[in-house]
Structure formats: structure tokens, C-alpha cells
């Protein structure tokens, strides 16, 4: 909760306590004649209503102030976009005191209305009491509202002033003009005064009427007392009854006798008396007897329950009282009549006071309005606008001051006009700081004009020099612009070439990268080929060894075959010898001859077979030798191939390394050419800008020439102008 809301709430509470608590309650207790029951009811009503309506009267203005501040914050955020919104917020702020005043007025009036209704219902408030309370309520509500208005206006004024200053509002909205404010204040004072006077008068009138009634009743009782004493002494009861009836002829009162038993020995036929029983009359007797004062000739008793007033006078020493009874309504009728006359007269007074207040407000505000209009015109520069508001009060004095200020300003205006026409010879007769400042300005202006004249001569000389220089500069700038144009064309070609180089470099970088990848793949393939070659060499050597082993085996076969041949030859020899021996044996050896022949044939077959085998073995050996030689040759070739492959692999590795270097170089070349391209484009742009600058320089040089010419002309013109000023010798 910020300070503003706290302050508004605090003052609302203080005024509530002061007006409702300290002003209303004692005033109501003093002016309203209430019974004890009514008083208790009033206090109960007051006890629950006062806190509730205090909270409303305090809380509602605080809420409105908070909403106003939030609206201001919202509007301040977009004040530059929607100034109308800020204007509305300030208007709301200016209207807020009036709004709070109206709110409190209605709230308090509503509270009193509810309270009066409750008193009528629960405490038998009569009409007079209700009207009187209503008058007090209007008075109290108006006082509270007025206090709230002026106080809240005072609290909010600095804040609203800061908003207006910050926002730069020229004219604040007129929420309540001075005229209306004076009128409202006057009327409020009048209404409160009338209501206050009316209620006080009404209260006192009530007592006055009661007193007058008591006096008249006493007189009647005194007039009747000797007659009744005489008739009582004579015992003429009929005459006594007649006398009392005659006295009771007016409708509003009854006369009767009352003893200490509560009986009415005479006059008991009265209408008012008929409604009473003996217990009530006994109570009335006792009350009258208690109030009997030796200093006072008569006594009276207001019986609120019966709504009657009893006036009594002792008739004898035995406690017999002569009593007159009248109803409250009689008094009320008289009081209502009095109240009506008071109200009518008050309305007449109010009307007169309203007219006078109106005239007062108009008298105060109308000249101020006219003065405001004149001041506005002066602010707009219309110094000669007439001030025709001359009254005998402070506003008239203010008008005279306005008139004097207008005349002095006219003098200053005239002097300024003279200065404008070049006459610096005179001095203005104007008192105060403004006149001194004006005269000093005139003196300084004279000095400045002298200095300007000297400066014009110098400027004129300088202009001629500038003119010559600018012509040379224009010529040089044109040549420079042409050179820059040619250079720009060359650099554009260079930039285009750089672009092509950059594109080619990119392609080359891509190709180098591809080459690197292929070289790496080839190196990998070479590694695999080398491994395969090694395997081939290994298998070839192994095959050669096996073939050599086969050759050795075939040689061993040859040896075996030689042995077999040898054996076969021996066998053949043996078989031949056997055959010879068999043939020598004649017939007996014939069988053996056949056997020997077969053996010989076998031997021959063996020889033939061994020959074949030998041949085959020889062929195998030859083939094995050939194979061994071939295998050795293959091994040599494989070794040579492996060596070459290793060399190729090394070469491929070098190629890969070189391809990587080539790729890196190509990328660097690509980047460099890209940068070169960018740089050349930047150079082209710069050259264009330079060309533009050169053109601008050429143009500027031309402009400078023109300006120099213009300046020369201007110095001539200035010389003419300055020559208009008349200076004191």
C-alpha cells in the first residue's frame, strides 16, 4: 500500500470519526428527545452501522485512488502513442475528489436513512424525531462530504501537478470551476446553517411549546381550583361534575380529580380518562406527587407510554389532586405547524442565499475568466489585446497590473520593432531585469554588427580564395573520378578473374581430395597385393622344394631301375644259359627250356618296362628339373614382383602423402582465392564508393564553387543589410 492511499484512508477515517462520532452523536442526544428504549436502540444501530460504513467510507476512496495510480502507470507506458489516454487519467484524477465527496455524501445519507428506518421500526421513532434526524443526517453528510472533497483535492493536487508537468499538458481539464466551487461551498454552508438552525430551533420550540402549554394549563387549573374547592366543601357532586365537564369541553384536554388510591372521584367521564385503569392512575398520582415541588405552583408528568402529559395542582391537604391531561399529538400538531413555517422560511432564505451565492461566485469567476482570456492572448503574442475588466476588488487590481504589464510589453515590442528596422540608436525605458537585459542586448547587438561588418570584409576575401580553390578542386576531383572509374573497371575485371580462379580452385580442391581418396584406396590395395605376393612367393618356394624333392625321388627311381635292369639282364643271361643247358640236355631239358624262355621273356619285359619306367622317370626328372627351374624362376619373379610392389607401395604412400599435401594446398589455395575473391569484391565495392566519393567530391567542389559564389553574393547582401543598421557615433 503506497503513501497516497494511506493518506487518503487516514484522512477519511479521521473525518468520519470527527463528523460522525464527535459531532453527530452528542448533537442527536441533545436535540432529539428520546426515551431510554429509543436511546438503547440508537446505540445498538450506531454500534453496527458506524464500523461498516466507516470501512466503506475509508475503503472505497482508497480503492479509487489505487485504480487511478494503476491507470496512470498503464497510460504512462504508452503515453507517447496515446496522449489522449493520459489526458483521461489526469481528468479522472481531477474528478476523483468530487467523486469521493459524492460517494461519501450518498453513503452517509444512506446510512442515516437505514438508521432512521430501524429507529421507526424498532424504537417507535415518531415523525418529529424522524424529520429532525433526517435534517441532522443531511447536515452531517454535507459536512463530511465537503471535508472529504477539500482534503482529497489537497492530497491529490501535488501528484496530479507532477503528472501534468511530466506529460506536458498545456491546459488541465476543468472539473469544477471556481464559480461552481464557490457556489457549492456557499450553498453547503447555507444548507448546513439552515438545517442546524432549524434543528436547534425545532428542539427548543418543542420545549417552548411544552412550557407554554404547562403555563396555560396551570392558569386553567388555578382558575378552576377555588370553584372546585367550594363545591367539594358543599358536597355538590353534580355541580362539581358539571364544572369539570365544562372545563373539559375543548377536545384536546380532560380535567378530573385524582386521589391517592388512583381513583377519579370526579371528571371520570372524560374520553382520555376512560382509557385508563386505576393502576395506571395510581402510578400517575405517585409520579405527580413525587414531582411536587413547594417552590413550583404546579407539577406535570409526561407519560411516554400513554403518550400523555398530566398537569396537577393539589386541591386539599388529603392528597386530592386536580389533574389536566392532554395527548402528545396536541403538542405534535403545534410543533409540526411550527416546523412547516420554519421550513418554508428556510426555503425562502435558501433561495435568497442561493441567488446571493450565485452572484458572489459569478462576481469572482467572471473577471478571472476574462483575465485568463487576455493572458492567453498575451501568451500567444497579441500584446495589444484590451484589458477591460476593472472592478474595485483584488481582481480589479489584478486587471490594472495586467494593463500596466501590457503597456510595458508594448514599449518593449516597439523597441524590438525599431531594432528590427535597424535602428539601434535609442534605449528602452523599462525598469527591472527585463529592461536592463533588453538594453544590454541592444548594446551587444551594436557591437556584434560592427564586428560582423569587419568579418564580412574578411569573409569576402576568403570567399574569393575559396572560389579559386574550389574550382581547382572541382577540376582535380573530376580527373580523380575518371581515374577511379578506370581503376574500378580494371578491379572489376580482376575481381571476375579472381572469382573464376576461386571456382577453379574449388574444383581443384575437390579433385585433389578425390585423388587423395583414390591414392589411399590404391595404397590399401597395394598393401593387399603385397601380402598376396608374399603368399605366392611362399607357395612357389614350397612348390619348388616339392618339385626338387620329386626330381630327387625320380633319380632314386633311376637307381632302382638300374638295379632292376641289372637283375633283369642277369636273369636273362641266366635264362639263356639255362636254355642252353636245357637244350644240351635234349628231350629232358625241353621243359626247362620253355621255363628258361619264359624267364628270359620276363626278364626282357622287365627290361622293357624298366626302360619305359626309366624313360618316364627321366621325363619326370626332366619335367621336375624344368619345374624346379620354372619355380625358381617364379620365385625370382615373385621376389622381383614383391620388390617392385614394395617400391610401388612406397611410391603410393608418397603419392598419398603428396595427395594429402596437394589437397591441403588446394584447400588453402581455395580459401586464399575465396578470400582474394571477397577482398577483390570488397575492393570493387570500395572503389565504387571511392568513385561515388570522387563524384561527390567533384559535385561538392562544384557545390563549393557555387557556395563560394553564393557566399560572395551573401556577403554583399549582408553588407547591404548591415548597412541598414544605424549606430550611435
Amino acid at each position, binding site marked *: 500500500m503506497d503513501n497516497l492511499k494511506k493518506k487518503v484512508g487516514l484522512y477519511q477515517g479521521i473525518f468520519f470519526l470527527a463528523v460522525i462520532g464527535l459531532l453527530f452523536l452528542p448533537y442527536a442526544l441533545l436535540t432529539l428527545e428520546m426515551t431510554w428504549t429509543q436511546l438503547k436502540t440508537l446505540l445498538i444501530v450506531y454500534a453496527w452501522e458506524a464500523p461498516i460504513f466507516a470501512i466503506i467510507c475509508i475503503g472505497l476512496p482508497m480503492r479509487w485512488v489505487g485504480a487511478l495510480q494503476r491507470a496512470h502507470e498503464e497510460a504512462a507506458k504508452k503515453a507517447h502513442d496515446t496522449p489522449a489516454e493520459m489526458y483521461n487519467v489526469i481528468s479522472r484524477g481531477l474528478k476523483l475528489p468530487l467523486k469521493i465527496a459524492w460517494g461519501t455524501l450518498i453513503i452517509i445519507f444512506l446510512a442515516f436513512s437505514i438508521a432512521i428506518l430501524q429507529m421507526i421500526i424498532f424504537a417507535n421513532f415518531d415523525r418529529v424525531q424522524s424529520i429532525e434526524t433526517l435534517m441532522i443526517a443531511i447536515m452531517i453528510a454535507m459536512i463530511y462530504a465537503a471535508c472529504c472533497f477539500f482534503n482529497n483535492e489537497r492530497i491529490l493536487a501535488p501528484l496530479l501537478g507532477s503528472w501534468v508537468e511530466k506529460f506536458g499538458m498545456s491546459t488541465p481539464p476543468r472539473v469544477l470551476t471556481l464559480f461552481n466551487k464557490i457556489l457549492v461551498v456557499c450553498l453547503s454552508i447555507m444548507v448546513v446553517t439552515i438545517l442546524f438552525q432549524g434543528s436547534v430551533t425545532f428542539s427548543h420550540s418543542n420545549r417552548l411549546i411544552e412550557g407554554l402549554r404547562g403555563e396555560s394549563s396551570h392558569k386553567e387549573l388555578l382558575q378552576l381550583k377555588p370553584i372546585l374547592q367550594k363545591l367539594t366543601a358543599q358536597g355538590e357532586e353534580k355541580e362539581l361534575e358539571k364544572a369539570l365537564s365544562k372545563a373539559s369541553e375543548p377536545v384536546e384536554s380532560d380535567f378530573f380529580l385524582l386521589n391517592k388510591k388512583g381513583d377519579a372521584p370526579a371528571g371520570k367521564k372524560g374520553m382520555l380518562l376512560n382509557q385508563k385503569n386505576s393502576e395506571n392512575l395510581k402510578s400517575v398520582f405517585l409520579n405527580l406527587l413525587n414531582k411536587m415541588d413547594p417552590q413550583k405552583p404546579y407539577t406535570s408528568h409526561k407519560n411516554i407510554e400513554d403518550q400523555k402529559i398530566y398537569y396537577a395542582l393539589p386541591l386539599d391537604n388529603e392528597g386530592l389532586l386536580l389533574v389536566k391531561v392532554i395527548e402528545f399529538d396536541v403538542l405534535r400538531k403545534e410543533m409540526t405547524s411550527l416546523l412547516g413555517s420554519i421550513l418554508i422560511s428556510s426555503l425562502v432564505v435558501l433561495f435568497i442565499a442561493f441567488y446571493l451565492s450565485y452572484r458572489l461566485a459569478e462576481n469572482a469567476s467572471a473577471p478571472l475568466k476574462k483575465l485568463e482570456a487576455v493572458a492567453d492572448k498575451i501568451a500567444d503574442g497579441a500584446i495589444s489585446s484590451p484589458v477591460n475588466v476593472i472592478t474595485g476588488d483584488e481582481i480589479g487590481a489584478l486587471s490594472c497590473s495586467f494593463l500596466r504589464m501590457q503597456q510595458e510589453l508594448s514599449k518593449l515590442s516597439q523597441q524590438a520593432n525599431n531594432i528590427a528596422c535597424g535602428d539601434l540608436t535609442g534605449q528602452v525605458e523599462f525598469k527591472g531585469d527585463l529592461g536592463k537585459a533588453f538594453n544590454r542586448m541592444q548594446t551587444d547587438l551594436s557591437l556584434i554588427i560592427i564586428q560582423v561588418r569587419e568579418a564580412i570584409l574578411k569573409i569576402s576575401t576568403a570567399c574569393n580564395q575559396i572560389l579559386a580553390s574550389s574550382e581547382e578542386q572541382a577540376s582535380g576531383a573530376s580527373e580523380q573520378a575518371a581515374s577511379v572509374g578506370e581503376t574500378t573497371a580494371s578491379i572489376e575485371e580482376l575481381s571476375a578473374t579472381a572469382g573464376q580462379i576461386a571456382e577453379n580452385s574449388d574444383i581443384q580442391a575437390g579433385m585433389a581430395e578425390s585423388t587423395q581418396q583414390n591414392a589411399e584406396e590404391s595404397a590399401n590395395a597395394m598393401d593387399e597385393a603385397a601380402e598376396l605376393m608374399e603368399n605366392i612367393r611362399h607357395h612357389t618356394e614350397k612348390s619348388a622344394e616339392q618339385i626338387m624333392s620329386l626330381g630327387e625321388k625320380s633319380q632314386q627311381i633311376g637307381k632302382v631301375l638300374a638295379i632292376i*635292369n641289372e637283375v633283369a*639282364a*642277369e636273369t*636273362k*643271361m641266366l635264362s*639263356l*644259359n639255362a*636254355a*642252353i643247358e636245357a*637244350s*644240351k640236355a635234349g628231350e629232358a631239358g625241353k621243359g626247362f*627250356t620253355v621255363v*628258361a*624262355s619264359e624267364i*628270359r621273356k620276363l626278364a626282357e619285359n622287365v627290361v622293357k618296362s624298366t626302360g619305359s619306367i626309366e624313360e618316364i622317370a627321366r621325363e619326370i626328372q626332366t619335367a621336375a628339373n624344368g619345374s624346379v627351374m620354372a619355380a625358381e624362376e617364379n620365385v625370382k619373379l615373385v621376389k622381383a614382383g614383391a620388390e617392385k610392389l614394395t617400391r610401388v607401395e612406397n611410391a603410393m604412400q608418397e603419392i598419398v602423402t603428396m595427395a594429402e599435401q596437394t589437397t591441403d594446398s588446394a584447400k588453402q589455395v581455395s580459401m586464399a582465392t575465396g578470400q582474394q575473391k571477397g577482398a577483390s569484391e570488397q575492393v570493387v565495392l570500395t572503389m565504387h564508393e571511392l568513385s561515388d566519393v570522387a563524384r561527390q567530391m567533384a559535385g561538392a567542389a562544384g557545390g563549393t564553387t557555387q557556395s563560394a559564389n553564393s557566399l560572395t553574393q551573401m556577403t554583399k547582401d549582408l553588407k547591404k543589410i548591415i548597412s541598414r543598421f544605424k549606430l550611435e557615433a
Partner: protein
Amino acid sequence: MTPATHIRNMHGKTFDFLLFRLGSFLLGVATEQVIRIRRGVMAQINPGSQQVDLRDIFQMPPHNQTNNSAAVLEVKSQLGRAYIPVDTAEDTIALNLDQIKKLPPLINFHKSHPALWGLALLENRIVFLVDLDRLSTNDSRNGEIKSNMV
């Protein structure tokens, strides 16, 4: 032992011959005349013994090549035990007298020797039959039996 001259008159009887090769000729001698056959060359077999060189006798070109099948026939003749080196001892066959033919006169056998007494036709081979006994009788004209004294 039946002399070759007697064989000519023994029709219908079979005779066993040892066939041996000398150069390109296939020769045959009666097995009765052959004591035994030995493998190898003469010098290795029996140095100092009587040697009959049929090449000289039949005027055949000398054989210079190494021959693993070379053999020496140990024969008995009128001269006694003699040794005949041959290129190869081929076979023993039995021939009818009918199979044995006279040497035809048209055959250009200018080196013919009286020891060559006939020929036999064996399928696709021609065997010249040699009578070892007649080698000594005609040594003046057709050859001589050498005594290789080592």
C-alpha cells in the same frame, strides 16, 4: 655234338640255336656249341683267353658305343674254348631243318664266310646261322681268331 654239316642232312628234326645280335645282324649258333653266356665285355670276363671277333671275321664296322647288354659267349670249337663278344644275347629258339635255308646267291654278302651256313626266317626277322667250327678252317680269307694276351 652234331656238326652243322650233319644238321643239313637231318630233315624233320629240330635244333636249338642261340640268337645273338652283332651290330644290325641277328646271328645264331647252335646251343650245343655254347658253353655259357657271360655278361659284360671280354676284358672283364676272362683276360688272356682266346677271343673270336666276329666283327673282324665278318668285316663289320666296329661298335664304339657303350652297351650295357654286351655279352661274351663262351663256346667250344675245334680250336678249343673260345670267347665271342656279342652285342646282345637275344634268345634261344628251336628250328626245324625246313626252316633253315641256304644262303641265297643273290644276296650281296661279299663278306660272306664259310661259317655262315644258312639262314632262318622268323616272322619278321632273319637269322644268320653261324657254324663256329668253320671259323678256324677259313681264317686266312675271312678272318682270324685272335689270342688276346693281356
